[in-house]
């Protein structure tokens, strides 16, 4: 069963255009010029129950606007959406109790008091049973290693600790659907990893469906089974991640380290393919069909170290953006 069904969703904003400088500010006081920006254009997709969908796109591509509409924060200009059979922006209680929203850039816990106090408030809001509430808190805080921080005022926590509390607050009521807007932004690598494994466990154990945006490819590749790429408000890709490589004919990345000066003729021939060079360490990006020939030639040069890998997803996605904009 599809948990999310989106049909030609469209949303635009009216933005006040200001010319630069004081002169621009002054003339803006008298006559305002507005510009209509279409943030999301005709977006349609579905999400199945238990799926983790990644929405990828550059800043301002329309990812967050889409999520805000799906969580009922914004009204669309056109199109329709159904989540668990509810229309999000009608904000029916049954809909609200089944969703959650974690925003990496915006804390939702009360700042001056310990996270535990906010959790108590959420307990009452969602009408959770005392016993299972205690149990969940104990379990989740242990999993994230923040048990000892539950009674520290949120303002005294580090960003990583705070985000762990935020994520507990987001899943406390066992939502069926969880929106995650850049959940790992600004976090150190260990904390990012912890967050990802936490989300994976939530997904496996409770079957929580998730919609996630992130600029960290690692979030996407280790969590999402499927991605949607949005560019300038439109979906330009919607499929399994592996499909991207096939569709866009990903190149191969070849790392080579030479023992001594590299053959000039070879470098000249593959000049275009050099992606990176650090002393005698070279990284080449080679088309898939040319890899055989390339490897044959390079082995004649007796490299000391040598590896072939796939092109990183972010490079492919970047290429897709660029192509779309052109």
């Amino acid at each position, binding site marked *: 069963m599809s948990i999310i069904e989106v049909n030609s969703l469209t949303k635009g904003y009216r933005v006040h255009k200001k010319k630069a400088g004081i002169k621009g500010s002054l003339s803006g006081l008298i006559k305002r010029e507005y510009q209509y920006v279409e943030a999301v254009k005709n977006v349609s997709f579905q999400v199945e129950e238990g799926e983790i969908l990644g929405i990828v796109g550059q800043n301002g591509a329309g990812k967050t606007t889409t999520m805000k509409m799906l969580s009922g924060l914004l009204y669309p200009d056109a199109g329709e959406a159904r989540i668990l059979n509810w229309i999000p922006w009608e904000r029916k209680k049954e809909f*609200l109790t089944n969703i959650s929203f974690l*925003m990496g*850039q*915006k804390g*939702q816990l009360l700042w*001056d008091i310990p996270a535990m106090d906010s959790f108590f408030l959420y307990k*009452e*809001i969602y009408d959770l049973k005392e016993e299972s509430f205690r149990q969940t808190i104990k379990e989740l805080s242990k999993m994230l290693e923040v048990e000892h921080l539950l009674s520290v*005022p949120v303002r005294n926590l580090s960003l990583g600790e705070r985000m762990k509390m935020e994520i507990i607050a987001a899943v406390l009521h066992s939502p069926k659907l969880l929106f995650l807007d850049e959940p790992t932004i600004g976090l150190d690598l260990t904390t990012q990893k912890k967050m990802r494994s936490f989300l994976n466990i939530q997904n496996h154990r409770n079957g929580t469906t998730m919609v996630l945006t992130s600029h960290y490819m690692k979030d996407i590749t280790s969590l999402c089974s499927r991605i949607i790429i949005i560019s300038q408000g439109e979906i330009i890709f919607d499929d399994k991640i592996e499909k991207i490589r096939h569709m866009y004919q990903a190149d191969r990345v070849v790392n080579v380290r030479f023992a001594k000066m590299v053959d000039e003729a070879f470098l000249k021939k593959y000049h275009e393919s050099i992606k990176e060079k650090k002393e005698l360490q070279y990284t080449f990006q080679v088309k898939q069909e040319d890899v055989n020939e390339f490897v044959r030639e390079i082995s004649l040069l007796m490299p000391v170290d040598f590896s072939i890998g796939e092109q990183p997803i972010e490079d492919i996605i970047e290429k897709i953006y660029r192509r779309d904009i052109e």
Partner: protein
Amino acid sequence: MRSLRKYIAVLKISTQNMLQYRGNIVLNWLLSTMTLVAPFAFWKTVYADREMLAGYELSDTITYVMLTTLLGKLLICDGIHNTISQDIREGKLSQFLWRPINYKAYIFFDTIGKKLMDFVVMCLLFSILLIPMSALGFFKTALSTGTAFAFLFSAFLGIILSFFLYFIMGLVAFWMTECSALYITLGTLFYFLAGGMFPLDMFRELKVISEILPFQYQLYLPVKIYLGKLSMAMVFRGIGIQMIWCLALWGISVIVWESGKKRYSSVGN
């Protein structure tokens, strides 16, 4: 009952929130004492060469001013408009939209929670002051049961009315991103019109206007009832108008909230 529990939790949290900053609490209490005592010196000077001012004896005025200062702390919901406009401007409102909680009720109980502590302390200070003041005849405490009841009811309506008033004012932020200029000017005017600075009937010219406007029904009316300065008919009339205003402002707040929500763009990322 369930949803009431929800909002009792809000009330508890906001009280806890208030108790987080010790320095601020102590300072607030100290300054509150001053606001209770300071007018005393002022009015002594005003009454130096007269017995009566617009039908008020010195003791009437002192009672009025002290009571409005004290009750103002509880009844006037000044300040919530700042919270609301900030929530809208900075996108904090989002959480109240995607969680099953009513923002209006949340703000209401949050306000009560914040005021409660302040009010209790003010009452303590007040009762200490009351002993010497009444002994000197500066404070009137002759309340009949009927008047006391009418006073309490009217005070209750006062806080509801005040809440809707400032709630609507906060919602202006849906349309005007920056409304501090509006708030500073209107804040003072509203407090004056509520009768928070002077007994309103000292200004005859204002009477017609202030009786039509909702402001005086927040504070001035309950205090007047307490002072026993109104006839039975006037008390009923006043409370009647209070109720009408409560209903009207509630209606306006619903309309403004609904259309504001549609404009909300939950800014930032």
